[in-house]
């Protein structure tokens, strides 16, 4: 029983990991809490649906195309909205992202309507192993997310782009002084964020369904995970996501299911009290 919960929790956490990463990156490099993540997830889900069921791509191809679509939209949003607001401070950006989330969600609703849809993915009976039920979706999700994380880690740690992104995150002025073109880095960061959320949207759609509210329901756990991990730390976001996922599943052992989300927040609080900068965040002066 516990084993099953651990498995379910890990996969739930992995589902949250990509959007949590996106939020962490936005915060670290773009310096504001991005509330458009919900709308972007929804967009990713619908993009995946279009490529998969309407244009006939297999799910893998459809997810990549969906990820690319959201990446493109994210960059466009930066050009049209976020880029122009960069000098206005993070709060303006935050509120703008709330507006953008509303726009993205309702754009999907406008074009596709309210109906709940599904991707053209075979649903299968689970594998049984050591008393656990492991569904195919869980395997696919885990593989996709872990693959993404490894890729992202490599990009951040070994490529010039990654180094530039980290430089901008740590000290934009110094980075500029060293010739790192901030605008370009920012656009590329948005593209990466878009790729992550787009893929996550498709995974969410496989897990649940394609409908206008699918992204919205992830928004709060995603933020909780990102903040728990220490905003600005990608690995922290992943750990935070796993912590949220696991605590939400394991909570059912001790509290009625309808309160399990509250438990995950309690766990977050405890973790933050123990480690006040978030799991991996760097904190200095506390006011």
């Amino acid at each position: 029983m516990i084993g099953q919960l651990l498995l379910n929790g890990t996969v739930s956490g992995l589902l949250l990991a990509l959007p949590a990463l996106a939020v962490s990156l936005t915060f670290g490099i773009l310096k504001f809490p991005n509330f458009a993540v919900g709308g972007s997830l929804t967009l990713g889900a619908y993009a995946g649906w279009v490529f998969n069921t309407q244009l006939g791509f297999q799910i893998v191809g459809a997810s990549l195309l969906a990820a690319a679509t959201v990446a493109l939209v994210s960059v466009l949003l930066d050009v049209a909205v976020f880029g122009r607001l960069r000098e206005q401070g993070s709060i303006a950006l935050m509120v703008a992202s709330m507006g953008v989330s509303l726009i993205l969600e309702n754009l999907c609703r406008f074009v596709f309507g309210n109906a709940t849809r599904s991707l053209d993915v075979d649903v299968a009976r689970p594998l049984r192993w050591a008393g656990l039920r492991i569904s195919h979706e869980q395997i696919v999700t885990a593989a996709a997310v872990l693959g993404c994380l490894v890729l992202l880690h490599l990009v951040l740690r070994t490529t010039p782009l990654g180094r530039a992104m980290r430089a901008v995150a740590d000290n934009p002025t110094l980075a500029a002084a060293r010739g790192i073109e901030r605008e370009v880095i920012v656009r590329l960061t948005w593209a990466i964020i878009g790729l992550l959320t787009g893929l996550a949207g498709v995974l969410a759609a496989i897990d649940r369904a394609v409908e206008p509210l699918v992204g919205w329901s992830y928004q709060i756990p995603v933020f909780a995970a990102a903040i728990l991990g220490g905003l600005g730390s990608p690995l922290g976001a992943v750990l935070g996501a796993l912590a949220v996922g696991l605590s939400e599943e394991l909570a059912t052992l001790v509290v009625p299911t309808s309160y399990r989300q509250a438990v995950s927040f309690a766990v977050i609080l405890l973790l933050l009290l123990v480690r006040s900068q978030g799991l991996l965040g760097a904190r200095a002066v506390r006011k």
Partner: protein
Amino acid sequence: MTAYLVTILVIVAIATLVGLALNFQWGCAGLVNFGVAGFVALGAYATALLTPVVGWFAAMLAAAALSALLSVFLALLSIRLADDYLAIVTLGFGEAVRLVLLNEGWLTGGALGIAGIPRPFASLIAPEHADFALLGFAVALVGIVYIILEALVRSPFGRVLRALRDDPVVAASLAKPVLILRIKAFAVGGAVMGLAGAMHAFYMTYIDPSQFTAITTSYAFMAVIAGGRGSNTGLMIGAGTIMLLLEGTRFLKDLIPALDGAQIAALRLGGVGVGIVLLLLLRPQGLLREPQRKAASLLADPERADAADPSLPASHPQEI
């Protein structure tokens, strides 16, 4: 038509109260509250449960007190945390409140809520004038709160808060007194949110959990920003702006020829999002008097590059 406008004005008044509270917590004291909906809900439910027992006035006081108390509790919880983790604590609080409201039916009526909430002065007013009377009550309340908060902001208490908000080094060296001031500021904001909840309960006379969701918190932040953050006067215009967007789009959609119902709804809500974004984009350059708050200061970062001069909120009316 007037009754409809009265409805809208009452809702704007309630939104203004929430905005005033948020502006005090965040604009003045630099405390981020993502659980706004939870505090308002507390005030509303406290009012709903207590008014039949102790009368509306005592119930309102209780609502404010309860909200303030929980604000203190949350602020204390986050004392050990890097300062702005208040955000996640309040977020969790908002969620916890929502869950309790939904699941503890014996107390809150659960998903079905509480109906038949009596209004203040109900027995003295003819039913036709009930809404007008409530509007008057709401406006009076907003006026009183506005005056009190303005006084607080200009007081030594307020000045210290604003100074501390912008200079973390000084704040760190002062430690304990700072924390107490912050907690007080958070509690004041919480109390006002409780009052807003009470007004909401009186107006709707029926409350249920669906009235206090995360979108409420979003609308509150939007209202504060739309008005020009830091200005209490501006915030009333901001609250009115959001309301105009929400309600004005009802009429716009009536002008559009037959579209699918979901499409019309999507246009409307999407229109609110577009409205907000346009508002932010078309902001005239250079008219901003409030301090530039970067993400850095929103969610604790040691490098507080150029904290601009803190303006005295509302004593310099902006863009009117």
